[in-house]
């Protein structure tokens, strides 16, 4: 070692592509406030056993670790080797991701049930047509019955999907997945039977002394993830559309510049729209505006963060701050009166950070409490009252804002969102044919779904944007959800002007349809919408999803939910890129199964490449190969 001390410093322009984020990271440094990037540096170096997935903490014979270099132990105390440990750990990640998406779905089923039984006045059926469609595919009679009766049956049938103990496959999956997929899943014994059951079985299989066969473990991972994509997440999407409206193209403004100097700023953060949509609605009421004026503000400004932001903006077009690494930076502006959170991706750090400013952090879910936050429990039966209570708390906090510490970056972008499957079909004139023809004749070369997360290990938005721009430049239509969508919107890819960045074919199609070259399909549970598009394309062409010129990508993923999504993409036959290495390299066998062998079974596989340009090139060549096999011009 040389004598100097290693000093790691965050350089704002190196850690984020978003200029507003750069400005606030600088503010954090000036004010001596810590962010995720600081904590990431403090964690360096991160443990190699964890990075490689060879640490097992599933029982207290251990903890055990396998020496990845072969000098130390090759087996845990129970005899589990690296292959078993890596596969078990991955299965637990898939189970956790599936649990998160599906528990979110369960909460929405509960609200639908309250609405159907007349037990809440705060919500109603916004999309009756979609309710009828869902009822029909579930085999629920609709003729001559009133909406609430049908809604009650839909809620009951779907609630049953979580815990039923027969061996029948999940009903939403049976109704919506393409035929060839279902035959394949049946053949390999990965047809999911009940959502909670697959998660539960994952926990059982990975506890000490149960499943040690990496192939058997990974197959159950596929089954669990399918219960997420084609049922849990699917249910969350369908029922949110029924309760809050199926998204249609809608304009909105995004980035930290949406916070306002002279308004009470409320940020809604998390994933579930049940409360956040209520906050947005109630905040717009004259009563709340009046109250805000009494406290010296011009009104109340509700801004969205992460996927609950996506849920609300897709339906109400609320101003939006952006993706997950902006959550701390929003509070750092000093201009946020309250941040209201439901669940998932909420950094516990927010509580400490809020204490440095006047911001009130409000937790609302019994399953998400954070020390230092104010807990106001949400109850969908009294949603309006609770929303009013929370907004009042924020308004009353407005006089506490310290203007000397306020800095709101100017940056904001205009964007178009709202591309549900229905909205895409309507843009296409009611049928998939124009899209299919454009794909067949090569005007559009393929479709890629880009999803998921920011990760401090990647320069914020750099992976997402570099990859997306490269793809659209090559006439590939990009659709996506979650934190990708925020990045794409902030960097102008959801504007009509973005067609200038598209290749000639894609540009022509987008101009004809009046759509941007990258389409916002919703929150991360709405990756289910991408499955619907893929299934519909496969069925319309009489091929399997794995034959289509499509791919998936998660360039900056971090969450266990992304592992579940990636796995159900792969199990549904999609070539899926990951920009951050998953914790599996400690087992050559598991790595080979995921990145090679699995393709022979389900037609999709994982591909890991941190460089977004190289990844885009590989995706383009995979799409070219699929086109060649279909006999379409490349």
């Amino acid at each position, binding site marked *: 070692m040389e*004598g100097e001390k290693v000093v790691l410093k965050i350089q704002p322009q190196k850690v984020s592509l978003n200029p507003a984020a750069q400005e606030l990271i600088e503010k954090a440094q000036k004010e001596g406030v810590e962010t995720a990037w600081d904590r990431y540096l403090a964690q*360096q*170096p991160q443990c*190699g056993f964890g990075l490689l997935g060879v640490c097992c903490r599933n029982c207290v014979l251990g903890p055990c*670790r396998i*020496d*990845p270099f072969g000098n130390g132990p090759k087996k845990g105390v129970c005899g589990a080797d690296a292959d078993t440990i890596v596969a078990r750990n991955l299965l637990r990640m898939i189970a956790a991701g599936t649990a998160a998406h599906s528990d979110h779905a369960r909460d929405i089923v509960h609200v639908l049930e309250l609405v159907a039984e007349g037990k809440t006045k705060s919500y109603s059926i916004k999309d009756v047509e979609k309710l009828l469609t869902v009822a029909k595919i579930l085999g629920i009679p609709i003729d001559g019955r009133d909406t609430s009766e049908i809604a009650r049956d839909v809620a009951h049938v779907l609630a049953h999907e979580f815990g039923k103990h027969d061996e029948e496959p999940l009903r939403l999956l049976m109704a919506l997945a393409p035929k060839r997929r279902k035959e394949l899943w049946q053949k390999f014994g990965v047809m999911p039977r009940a959502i909670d059951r697959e998660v539960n079985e994952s926990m059982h299989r990975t506890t000490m002394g149960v499943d040690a066969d990496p192939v058997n473990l990974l197959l159950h991972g596929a089954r669990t993830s399918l219960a997420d994509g084609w049922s849990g997440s699917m249910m969350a999407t369908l029922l949110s559309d029924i309760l809050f409206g199926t998204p249609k193209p809608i304009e909105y403004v995004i980035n930290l510049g949406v916070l306002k100097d002279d308004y009470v700023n409320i940020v809604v953060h998390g994933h579930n729209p049940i409360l956040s949509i209520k906050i947005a609605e109630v905040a717009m009421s004259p009563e709340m505006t009046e109250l805000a004026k009494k406290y010296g503000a011009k009104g109340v400004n509700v801004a969205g963060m992460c996927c609950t932001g996506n849920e609300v903006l897709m339906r109400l077009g609320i101003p939006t701050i952006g993706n997950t690494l902006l959550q701390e930076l929003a509070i750092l502006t000093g201009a946020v009166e309250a941040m209201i959170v439901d669940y998932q991706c909420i950094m516990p750090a927010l509580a400490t950070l809020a204490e440095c400013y006047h911001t009130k952090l409000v937790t609302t879910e019994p399953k998400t409490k954070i020390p230092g936050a104010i807990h106001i429990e949400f109850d969908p039966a009294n949603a309006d009252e609770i929303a009013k209570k929370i907004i009042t708390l924020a308004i009353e906090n407005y006089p506490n804002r310290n203007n000397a510490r306020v800095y709101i970056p100017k940056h904001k972008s205009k964007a178009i969102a709202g591309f549900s499957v229905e909205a895409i079909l309507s843009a296409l004139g009611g049928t998939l044919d124009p899209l299919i023809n454009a794909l067949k004749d090569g005007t559009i070369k393929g479709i890629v779904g880009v999803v998921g997360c920011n990760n401090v290990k990647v320069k914020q938005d750099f992976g997402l944007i570099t990859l997306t721009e490269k793809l659209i430049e090559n006439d590939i239509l990009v659709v996506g959800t979650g934190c990708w969508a925020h990045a794409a919107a902030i960097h102008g890819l959801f504007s009509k002007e973005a067609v200038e960045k598209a290749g000639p074919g894609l540009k022509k199609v987008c101009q004809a349809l009046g759509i941007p070259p990258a389409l916002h399909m919703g929150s991360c549970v709405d990756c289910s919408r991408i499955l619907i598009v893929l299934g519909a394309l496969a069925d319309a062409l009489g091929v399997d999803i794995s034959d289509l010129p499509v791919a998936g990508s998660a360039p900056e993923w971090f969450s266990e939910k992304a592992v579940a999504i990636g796995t159900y993409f792969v199990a549904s036959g999609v070539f899926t890129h990951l920009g951050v290495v998953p914790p599996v390299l400690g087992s050559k066998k598991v790595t080979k199964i995921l990145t090679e062998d699995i393709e022979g079974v389900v037609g999709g596989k994982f591909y890991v490449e*941190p460089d977004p340009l190289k990844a885009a090139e590989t995706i383009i060549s995979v799409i070219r190969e699929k086109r060649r096999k279909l006999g379409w011009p490349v």
Partner: protein
Amino acid sequence: MKTEKKLIIAHPGLCTGCKSCEIACAVEHSKSKDIYFASLETPLPIQRIRVLLRDSYSMPVRCQHCLDPPCLAACPTKAIFQTPEGFVLINDSRCIGCGSCVGVCPVGAIQIHPELKIAIKCDFCVDRVRAGLLPACVEACPTGALQFGTLDELRSKARAPTRAKMEETISPKILREMLQTVRWV
């Protein structure tokens, strides 16, 4: 250098950054010397070895027990001394916590204890070594990245891995590549 002098060497290619050495060091320098109780002590025990990241290599760094230690020369109270084995140690009762040694250490291995206000650093686990045990960090290292012995012993252990072994294990290069995802540091 006397060939019988005991050394601890660190092989950065084998260090996974797990920080087991840091924990073992803190426990060894606790009152209880027990992982379960050490975290309850006041003051809390402090490790004298640190795993640092540099150029995508993780690497444990500790006092090198220099042959001609600048800290020893800098100490105004003669609290720092060398043992017959060549270990550089600090006599707590003579240390006034002035920090002169901290500034001159070429590897940044000396710190002032925040509560006791005296200089602390790696003591080579002198009691353990004299009792024929391995230093705590070496014993704790799960991959053999830290090794203990005389120069001759260490040299004889350093053999190229066989082809068969290389095929069945993960190349340290893979871990380097994963750590390299810290691209912006």
